[in-house]
């Protein structure tokens, strides 16, 4: 009788859990794989683990942590320097690993929210934006140097030049902060230490939140918003050069713009790609290019044109004359940015067969990688 009662109770609980689990999406993956490519290796983060893969054959050079840790979620592309690989996770930890062995060198746990974007290793300084509204600066030993607070969560990778570090925030602003700021300029942080930069050196209002990484070339920053506006910001004049919306036609932009000699390519989640004159900020084509599916991740530029992938698995090259060439069609969704190194295209399809695939420019697979667990 007692066992029957327990059985009924169990059935009841399982039923309730089954019904409610259908309503919650918090247990599902909350982002997509992020990777960065050097001349020899690929650093890939995809949920519980980060991998270093040999660019030539996809073999695992190291993985961190060595065993799968289900409590850990890391999706931001790892940043790499000469000796370090830095990874930020959804638990609010920024971890530095030895570039060659993957052993942990230090961890920074001073943030209170998720690291969504990649960090930036700039000489001896590591810059990382966090959803807790801060930009953190650490030295290469992991010691906290200073932080700057924006008005909203930060999901974009910082960029830098000789004197400034820049980032775009979801608070609608693009910020510039001097790297060599004097200690006198620091304000008191919550813990009483003089480590807070209260004001940026300069900023511009973009009018909407930014989730796409900005790109800098020759002192000009190209950054696009979730409303579908592409801006060119002159960092020397500290002002907006031009704003391109194609008469309000551009949709929400999630991927970093692709900047080439004369053209900026920008793709939106409505599946449209726009070619923009880099100097004037005007449309290159009378109408946009239809990608046939949402373009979420940024593209990459090669001699032939810009390579993009859409969420229906189509991988293609588009040149400045709006002439496309399909490389291949996957059956799986692609949300991560496209990578390119050593004449190989790298993509992370949402597939059960491969987490990362390397292929040549004709779409022939060179290797694919799937973690054993």
């Amino acid at each position, binding site marked *: 009788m007692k066992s029957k009662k327990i059985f009924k109770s169990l059935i009841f609980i399982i039923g*309730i859990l089954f019904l409610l689990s259908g309503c919650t999406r918090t247990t599902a993956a*909350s982002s997509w794989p992020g990777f960065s490519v050097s001349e020899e290796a690929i650093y890939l983060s995809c949920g519980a683990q980060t991998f270093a893969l040999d660019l030539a054959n996809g073999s695992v050079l190291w993985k961190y942590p060595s065993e799968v840790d289900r409590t850990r979620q890391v999706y931001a592309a790892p940043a790499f320097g000469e000796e370090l690989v830095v990874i930020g996770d959804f638990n609010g930890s920024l971890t530095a690993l030895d570039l060659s062995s993957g052993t942990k060198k230090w961890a920074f746990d001073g943030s209170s929210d998720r690291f969504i974007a990649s960090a930036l290793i700039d000489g001896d300084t590591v810059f990382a934006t966090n959803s807790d509204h801060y930009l953190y600066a650490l030295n290469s030993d992991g010691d906290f140097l200073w932080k700057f607070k924006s008005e909203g969560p930060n999901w974009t990778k910082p960029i830098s030049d000789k004197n400034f570090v820049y980032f775009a925030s979801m608070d609608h602003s693009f910020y510039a902060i001097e790297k060599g700021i004097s200690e006198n300029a620091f304000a008191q942080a919550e813990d009483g230490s003089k480590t807070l930069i209260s004001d940026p050196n300069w900023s511009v209002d973009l009018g909407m939140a930014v989730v796409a990484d900005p790109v800098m070339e020759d002192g000009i920053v190209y950054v696009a918003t*979730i409303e579908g506006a592409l801006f060119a910001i002159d960092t020397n004049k500290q002002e907006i050069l031009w704003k391109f919306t194609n008469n309000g036609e551009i949709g929400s932009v999630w991927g970093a713009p692709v900047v080439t000699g004369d053209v900026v390519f920008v793709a939106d989640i409505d599946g449209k790609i726009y070619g923009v004159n880099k100097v004037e900020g005007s449309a290159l084509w009378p109408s946009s290019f239809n990608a046939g599916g949402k373009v979420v991740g940024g593209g990459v530029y090669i001699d032939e044109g810009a390579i993009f992938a859409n969420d229906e698995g189509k991988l293609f090259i588009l040149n400045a004359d709006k002439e496309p060439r399909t490389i291949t069609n996957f059956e799986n969704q692609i949300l991560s940015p496209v990578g390119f190194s050593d004449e190989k295209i790298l993509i992370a399809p949402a597939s059960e067969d491969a987490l990362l695939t390397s292929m040549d420019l004709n779409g022939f697979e060179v290797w694919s990688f799937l973690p054993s667990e």
Partner: protein
Amino acid sequence: MWESLIIEPFITALLFIYDLIGENIGLAIILFTVIIKLITWPLMSKQIKSSKALQEMQSDPEWIEIQKKYKNDKDKLAQEQMSFYKKKNISPFASCLPTLIQFPVIIGLYQSIIQTMGNAPLQMLNLIPKISPWLKDLFSFIPGLQEPLSLIPLNSQFLWMDVGRPERIFIPGISFGIPLLAIIVAATSFVQTKLIASPAATTDKQSNQMSGMMNVYMPLLMGWFAYSLASGLALYFLASNLFSIVQYAILGRFDFKNLFPKKSKEIKE
């Protein structure tokens, strides 16, 4: 279909309220829950009345007599039960049909709250296409309202909590956070389930067992969800529970005896 019929209108309404009341997501969730509860009031009232009729039937001397008479003949008892329902004008399905109709609404509300918070890339990516261009026109009707996309990211702070994260309150001197909201959700769920449950023991041992299990497990489950999921959902649970308790009171079903019943007497054969 599900997205366009349920999720998108719910997200639109939630964003609209959020904008209207000055970008307070906690209040927006509470108000939105109340509005949905008001819309589904007639269904809920019908359910409460039907369940009341079924409960009263359990203490009806005529029904007790029938149960005694046919206790060894289950087929005959079932036949007599149907006749009894007909005679007393009771529809046993009337108590569960409204629940079935409300269920998609509850699930939709639940999903829209999660999606509207958009505190991870995949959630945000799903949220943005749901803020469709026609929504801009809707918002432009009311002066002072912002363009919907400019509301992103939503201000997730409400009182001491971040509605996108599980709630904990930190008290000086205590090293860990106390899940106050989860405790309140569990308590209000307990009150609500006790109000739904039959005050007196029925003659049906099985339903008594089930009712007992429900009274214990449901509040614990709701408390667990409020403890582990985003506090915006816990706010929804709390607003929903409190509304239901008030609804029970208005419909004359609020009885403290249900909360603290005396030990039930066995029905003598």
